[in-house]
């Protein structure tokens, strides 16, 4: 029987993680993600999991990666300043193909910024923040229910692609208490173990190798140096580096339309809103207050890898409007993939777009 609960986004995220089988949390307190750590500290020891508050965010992500190699489903939660600190080790997780989940409750930046106000300013950072070429997956919840569901999905995607996956939420959704429905059954897709006789870094048909868990006799050497398919460092061979980096990028990019998670309203509209995260709620309110068949909405739940083919669903589109709580980050992807005019609606300061603002924009159309 599914249950109805009333909880804030952070708690929903933690509950979703526990439902997905998370059994290791290594974190450091930072507003506005601290509630996730506190909830995990209370719940994990009772479920035979491990909670540890590490000395800083760098140590947190390091402990999460280490735990993941022993087979645990591990996660951490942080915000802007901690996210910047974690970047080197995120690159390490990408290079070593370690599955883990990193929740970033975005807050006003740059630097210490606005610790208690929401923003979406880290969206490009989660894709390009670490050095080198790589690709990654980012999910953006727009409600407490989505915090629960998308966290479960994040664990499954992390295990499927052997990758660190980001849940890019923000202070507004994280601290809003809403009604959520806890399903009685969540689908858990565990990681594929490495078969004996296969190489630990040899991609299968989908480019993803099996996972050689520590302690099972695989004797795997995991390194951040460029490595060949056995895992041995070969840092000076150009061909090996090219093969490795291309596989790391293509294993995600080639599946971007397969994993796309989105919602479409009025596909025949001429003016289309493209949103992710909190502006979704504003747009839904506008469309509820002023129903208009000529206004459509594309709500992205998975933002990276960007599924550009979805823009083509709107065959009659003449304009795209992209409201974001930043100076324009994902709108660059929309602009890149369409020749139609794209209107940016940046909003800084921590407050959401109001329905009136967006409605005035629609009225001002020629």
């Amino acid at each position: 029987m599914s249950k109805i609960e009333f909880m804030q986004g952070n708690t929903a995220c933690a509950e979703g993680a526990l439902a997905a089988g998370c059994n290791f949390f290594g974190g450091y307190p930072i507003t506005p993600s601290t509630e996730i750590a506190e909830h995990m500290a209370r719940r994990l020891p009772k479920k035979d999991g491990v909670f540890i508050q590490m000395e800083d965010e760098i140590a947190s992500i390091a402990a999460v990666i280490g735990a993941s190699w022993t087979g645990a489903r591990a996660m951490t939660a942080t915000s802007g300043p901690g996210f910047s600190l974690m970047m080197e080790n995120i690159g390490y997780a990408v290079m070593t193909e370690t599955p883990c989940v990193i929740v970033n409750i975005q807050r006003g930046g740059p630097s210490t910024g606005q610790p208690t106000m929401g923003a979406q300013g880290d969206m490009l950072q989660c894709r390009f923040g670490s050095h080198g070429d790589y690709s990654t997956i980012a999910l953006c919840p727009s409600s407490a229910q989505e915090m629960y569901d998308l966290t479960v999905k994040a664990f499954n995607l992390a295990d499927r692609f052997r990758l660190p996956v980001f849940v890019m939420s923000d202070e507004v959704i994280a601290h809003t208490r809403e009604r959520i429905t806890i399903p009685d059954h969540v689908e858990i897709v565990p990681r594929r173990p490495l078969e004996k006789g296969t190489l630990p870094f040899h991609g299968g048909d989908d480019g993803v190798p099996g996972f050689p868990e520590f302690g099972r006799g695989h004797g795997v050497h995991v390194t951040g140096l460029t490595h060949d398919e056995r895992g041995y460092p070969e840092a000076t061979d150009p061909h090996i580096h090219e093969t490795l980096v291309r596989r790391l990028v293509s294993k995600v990019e080639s599946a971007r339309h397969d994993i796309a998670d989105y919602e479409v309203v009025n596909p025949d509209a001429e003016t289309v809103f493209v949103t992710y995260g909190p502006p979704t709620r504003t747009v839904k309110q506008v469309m509820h207050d002023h129903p208009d068949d000529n206004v459509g909405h594309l709500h992205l739940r998975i933002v990276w890898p960007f599924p550009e083919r979805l823009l083509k669903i709107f065959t009659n589109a003449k304009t795209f409007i992209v409201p974001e709580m930043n100076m324009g980050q994902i709108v660059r992807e929309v602009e890149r993939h369409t020749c139609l005019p794209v209107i940016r609606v940046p909003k800084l300061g921590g407050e959401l777009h109001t329905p009136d603002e967006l409605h005035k924009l629609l009225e001002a159309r020629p």
Partner: protein
Amino acid sequence: MTFLDWYREDRLPHIYCTGCGNGTVINCTLEAVEQMGWAVDDTVFISGIGCSSRAPGYIKTDSLHTTHGRALAFATGVKLANPRLNVVVFTGDGDLAAIGGNHFIHACRRNVDLTVVCMNNMIYGMTGGQGSPCTPVGAISTTTPYGAAEPVFDLSELAVTAGANYVARWTSYHVKELTKAVKVGLETPGFSFIEALTQCPTAYGRRNKLRQVSDMINYLRTNVILIQKTQRMRERGEAVPKDKIPVGEFVRRNRPAMGVPK
């Protein structure tokens, strides 16, 4: 089985220079692990970045070669998630004391059930010979061309103060004592820290008139003093020579430990 059987034969000969102390310390660690009777499948070696940290790539077990200075944080994650695994950490003086200083003191404070073997060659060897927090005062390195001016970190005293359960220091000349110290560290639950002063003839020795391997080994051999002797000297009221480095077992105690398998 001897300690030689723990090496990945297809990866030898390794990249270490002629006469490098790291090869010796790895031999001693593997001999201690072999004497403990651990299985290859249950042991994990974790390391940071540097010459010392290339070691796990040559050992048959599961291993994690992580980012600079963060080996202890990764090791905490591995050990707490699966306490049945035997975790040994290889690190260097720069990796542990400079960039990894914070993780070092917290791992000692938490007393996680790990064994850390620090190969202290008093220099940043892999990157060409820059000064490290353990470079002796007055020594020449590429970033201290007029002689190192900063005071030296005493890693063993730091570990004792931060709360490690077992701390010992030996040099790569004292192979038998080093092996025994590592073995005691592996047996002791809680955080065990073994510092091994090693020779780096290429990066340190060449710039400090100790280019010959035998010269550097003699330097290490003559500039150490047994810690029991310093204690006796203090009891008798004699002045302890300041230029000699104490070696031996610093502390062995039973503070509560984390990650010990039940």
